[in-house]
């Protein structure tokens, strides 16, 4: 009798845990967001002109693939997009100059900046007044990223879509000179988000 009562109590306790549906684990589609970046670096070592202009091709294929594989979860990629931008002065020796200018991507305005001091370690982002994200460049890169994601999703990733032609130009105040040339390196990074739906096993209690 006592043994029977005990068994009934045990079943009651277990049923509370199992909720009656008999399955402890349930697979759910979870909308996950991963972060990544597309960096570009600008180097004006020895430059003696007030206005700096330089064009570079930035291949973002590796950076984007890193962002897509930032976790080990299988899932369906929904979107990839630029959500912001940051900059950091990596090296600055000699005179401290104010630098104001733009970065374009394939001719589309991407960044506008006006940084009053450029000592080594200075950082800023699109959330403060020193850096503004440009809609034409943003739309251009987001369009390319989405095209790349479409190709990735069908198993034929086209990394050529992620080769961007960046042009940076800025004016330094005071201007550098032959006796006091620019010794300045800085990086501008686009912060990207990857949204995917992953199947995650979660406890069903």
């Amino acid at each position, binding site marked *: 009798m*006592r*043994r029977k009562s*005990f*068994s009934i*109590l*045990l079943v009651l*306790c*277990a049923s*509370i*845990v199992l909720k009656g549906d008999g399955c*402890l*684990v349930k697979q*759910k*589609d*979870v*909308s*996950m*967001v*991963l*972060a*990544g*970046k597309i*960096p570009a670096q600008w180097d004006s070592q020895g430059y003696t002109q007030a206005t700096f202009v330089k064009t570079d091709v930035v291949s973002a294929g590796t950076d984007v693939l890193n962002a897509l594989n*930032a*976790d*080990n*979860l299988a899932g369906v990629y929904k*979107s990839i*997009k*630029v*959500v*912001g*931008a*940051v*900059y*950091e002065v990596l090296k600055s020796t000699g005179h401290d100059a104010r630098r104001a200018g733009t970065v374009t991507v394939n001719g589309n305005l991407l960044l506008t900046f006006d940084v009053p001091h450029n000592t080594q370690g200075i*950082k800023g*982002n*699109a*959330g*403060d007044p020193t850096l*503004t*994200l*440009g*809609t034409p460049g*943003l*739309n251009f890169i987001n369009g390319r990223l989405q095209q790349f994601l479409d190709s990735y999703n069908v198993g034929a990733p086209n990394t050529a879509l992620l080769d961007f032609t960046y042009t940076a130009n800025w004016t330094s105040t005071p201007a550098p000179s032959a006796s006091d040339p620019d010794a300045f390196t800085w*990086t501008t*990074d686009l*912060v990207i*988000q990857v*949204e995917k739906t*992953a199947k*995650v*096993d*979660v*406890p069903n*209690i």
Partner: protein
Amino acid sequence: MRRRRITCPALPALGMTLALGMVTLLWTATAFAQVEGSLSVYGAANGRGYLQPLKEALGSGLAAGLYNTARVESGHFRVRLEANAMLMSFGSSDRTFNAHTESYFPSDQTAQAPTVVGSTQSTSVTDPGTGAVFTFPGGLDLSRLALAAPQVVIGGVKGTELMVRYLTVQLGKNSDIGDLSLFGIGARHSLSQYMHSPKIDVAALVFYQSLNLGTDFIDSSLLSFGVQAGRRFRVLEPYVGVALNSQSFEMRYDAQQGGSSTRQDIKYDTDTSLGATVGAALHLKVVHLNGQFEFAHQTTFAFGLSLGM
């Protein structure tokens, strides 16, 4: 010669209770490990809000199921092996938090975003100036969280007993998160032994526990001071208790903050709060079965099965 088979239905039941709790605990830990990737979009402030329900649930769960009687025996040595499972329920306020876009987004905007136990669906906001869209990740859509704790109680000396909890679970070689471990040690002392003809049993408790997930993903500890009172009616013992619980909680993950990946070390302020317990136990000689509600940050239901005197 006929061999007599000795059976004890409580032993497999003890194992089953513990296994049930451990399986749910394992899956919970694994699920949390899987959303670590989503944490990379969050800096410290958002990460803190996203994980707040997990912190509170662990605190509530660790505070529950520490005892299944208010009586602390005296005069004879006793050992009891216990299996406890705790179920913490989440409320609607646990499902969202007031999230802010990160600093690299062109404008500071807020949204009611899912916490780690909230909706599986993400939430987005759009910057009106540029059209940039910031997406806040979804959660795991959990109604409850489970903890399991095997416990050994050794006592009988001057109305005092020693309690030890220990559990370690390997989440697998392929897990990014590492292992899970729980260690707790505490003592209870009978207060009713100092009373003249006590009508009820009264005991005081002190208990320290630490729970670690991964090498440095989650570190949580709880220090509890409490008093319990109960009365036995043959095999049935209703009991109540109050406790002061002091919880510390620290979590670390890599976040993409701006251009570089930075290690986020989120250390919550030590949280001290009162908890109340209402429960009942069946004492069937060497088998003891109990269920109790713990009222703290979250309401926790704990049930346990123990063998011993």
